[in-house]
């Protein structure tokens, strides 16, 4: 079922003005164009490679290599800030806690903070530049994840914006009934709980009907085919190989410099 890398796009049967789905306007940014499976693999590699080491040098080198990728992510302005700013804050918090309560001193604290950033930045970049549908396609076609959970998660993701819209409607409906949180925290909690309950009921109902709708469209009756090919380009291989190379280099440099320190052997 898995198409080999570099499968040509499907023959375009339509000649109308409508571009085919495979010919959808491609996201311009390099990282957004990469196969989600490649980005996921790279992020997992970084995490696996950095969890066992606690020194700031290894992680710092990986972070230094990862940060420039943000320029190729297509993320700009407010969106980049919303994604990026919490990370240093989290790292600072982790560093501070390690500094105050840890036994490894300033170097250990710095190591913990930098390691967190080095693992988080590639993951966030991978998640932020991957479309959920493309990710599910890549998981199924490239990484051979079973169809049913992949499609189910994808369908559930579609409900998230629906629930957000639902949440706004519930707020407006409460205003229409004369209920507003106001300054009273007890009332605010009551209003919030009521909204949460109504949202849960709605979510369960929507989920059930969605499952039924999928069943009526013959989901699970036999082997599926794939309308959207998940293509693997040379750049995707380069991304994964490059990540591995950066990791190895970081470890070697740190070893050579004598700063390399594995987990559990802190001084």
């Amino acid at each position, binding site marked *: 079922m898995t198409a080999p890398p570099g499968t040509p796009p499907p023959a375009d049967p339509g000649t109308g003005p409508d571009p085919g789905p495979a010919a959808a306007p491609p996201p311009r940014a390099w990282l957004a164009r990469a196969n989600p499976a490649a980005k996921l693999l790279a992020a997992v590699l970084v995490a696996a490679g950095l969890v066992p080491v606690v020194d700031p040098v290894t992680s710092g080198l990986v972070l230094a290599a990862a940060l420039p990728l943000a320029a190729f992510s297509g993320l700009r302005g407010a969106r980049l800030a919303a994604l990026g700013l919490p990370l240093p804050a989290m790292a600072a918090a982790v560093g501070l806690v390690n500094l105050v309560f840890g036994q490894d001193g300033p170097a250990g604290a710095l190591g913990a903070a930098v390691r967190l950033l080095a693992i988080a930045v590639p993951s966030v970049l991978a998640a932020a530049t991957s*479309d959920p549908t493309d990710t599910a396609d890549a998981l199924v076609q490239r990484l051979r994840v079973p169809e049913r959970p992949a499609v189910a998660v994808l369908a559930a993701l579609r409900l998230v914006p629906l629930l957000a819209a639902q949440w706004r409607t519930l707020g407006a409906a409460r205003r229409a009934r004369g209920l507003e949180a106001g300054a009273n925290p007890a009332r605010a909690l009551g209003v919030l709980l009521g909204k949460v309950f109504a949202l849960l009921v709605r979510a369960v109902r929507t989920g059930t009907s969605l499952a039924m709708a999928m069943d009526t469209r013959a989901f699970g009756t036999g082997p599926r085919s794939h*309308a959207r090919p998940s293509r693997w380009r040379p750049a995707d291989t380069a991304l994964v190989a490059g990540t591995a190379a950066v990791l190895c280099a970081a470890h070697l440099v740190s070893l050579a410099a004598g700063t390399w320190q594995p987990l559990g052997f802190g001084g």
Partner: protein
Amino acid sequence: MSGAGAAAGGARVELSGWGWRHTGRASWALRGVDLVVEPGERVLLLGPSGAGKSTLLHAMAGLTGDQGAIGGDEEGRLRVDGRPAAAARGVSALVGQDPESQLVMARAGDDVAFGPENLGLARAEIWARVRATLDAVGFAHGLDRPTAALSGGEKQRLVLAGALAMRPRLLLLDEPTANLDRAGAALVRGVLADLLERTGATMVLVEHRVAEVTGGTAGAADLVDRVVVVEPGGGVVADGSPAAVFARHGRALAERGVWIPGREPRPRLPAAAPGGVLVEAAACTARAPAPLGVLGGRPATVLRDADAVVRSGCATALTGPNGAGKSTLLGLLAGLARPASGTVAPRGRLAEVSARPLARWPARRLARHVGTVFQHAEDQFVTGTVRDELAFGPRRAGLGATETARRVADLLERLRLTGLADAHPFTLSGGEKRRLSVATALSAGPEAAPDVLLLDEPTFGQDTRTWTELVELLADLRAADRAVVMATHDDLLLDRLADTEVVVEGGRTRAARAPGGAAPAAGPAAEATATDSATRTPPAPAGGPAAERPGPQPPAPDAPAPDATASDGLTPDAPAHRAEPTAAAPAPGAGRADRGARRASREEDR
């Protein structure tokens, strides 16, 4: 090559002694159903509310049974093409009522491709079918259009395309056009008729608005050739051609709330005269909320320079195609949302309460003067029982326990909810929820109903009994010098109740004359209803000067707090005069003059 339907033939459906009882229920939804649907037949399934019509459709789609999504007890036999329905999935396709919960994928083209993918079709074939079916249902956007950005009607077209792309031999439709505007509904019916003609697929349809599928209305597609009537807890009670079934059982069915062509309800409507302006929206722009997620696009502009005027003693209808911004405008007029630019300001006696823009009113004050009924009634329930729900408004308005209890008992009685007083609002049926949601909005005022009541698709999916009650309730409210605003697709509601119409189209507004007269852009279906009403039922009074009106004079528009007995919109014995047809049908020029006068008075109000 691959049109929306190559010859696929129809499936045969056979039920004998079939029954279904939902898990946890004591009574059977359906029992002893004996029915054979031959290949290529187009069956309309009819029955009173709660007759298990949807359940029967779900069973035919293979959703019930041991591995099915719907749990319960089954008896008898149900076969699709000689196989159990669950084994025949893929042969059948079901289109349900709510498009929201039937779309699986995030992009339009991907969603239509989902069924063909499940059938294991080749990629080229899938996309050929996707394009053909999207064309066939008149889908206006590209394949990459996010499904979340579609209006209800557009979503329903997409759902239909998703079903048709599977080339089903059995098409099961549960009110497929209920969410669509007039043009969209006619288009979908046309697509269905054409498709069934070409493929010979079998169809079983549940539809409230019977006239539109049996040729009862001019211009309606003659979509069905057989009508089957089922009984709650029972089996088939009538079966035959539409004409034969309606002739023999029409009266009995109509009395039980079923929409039967030629037997539409005739509510008794007290006349009212339009009073002063209560709410005025001027040059309003509204944007959709910013989409979630880092890859979401920019917020779309829903309304551009929209104007609307809400008058007391007047029923204003917001109409227009799906996705044009009716609900958004309703939310602005209700003070529930702030326009991105422009103003929604109280006028007249509302301005005496507070001159601030409605969106800045505290919720408590807003609820006392402006009531809103949401499209999904469930959204606005805030307590655990029907009784508490009704007592909520009076209590918050500071009424005593005795007065609250009296008011609640009165509302329960009037809306046939007395037996359900202690039930959880979420457990009610659709009609009951709708009645309760309207009642809560009307119970909210201190002494009387709110000055303005806004309703989003109030009659959607209702049987004739609930429909009639709602229309009478709204007309009483109007006669008590309140303003009624409704966003609606319901032609009959427009015809019977609406005094003025604001058409929302492409994010802009345009004032139209009362819909009882001939609207220039209306389709054949609308003309038919209009003629209908002229010959048989007097339409609601249509925006003429007050002096021409029979009926009681409403209280002066500037009276800030009308006393409860005279103007309570819920008073059941409000004088119910029927407008004389001659007086009610304005001369063609009258509307224009009236509109001019209205514009002039609007200038004065400023």
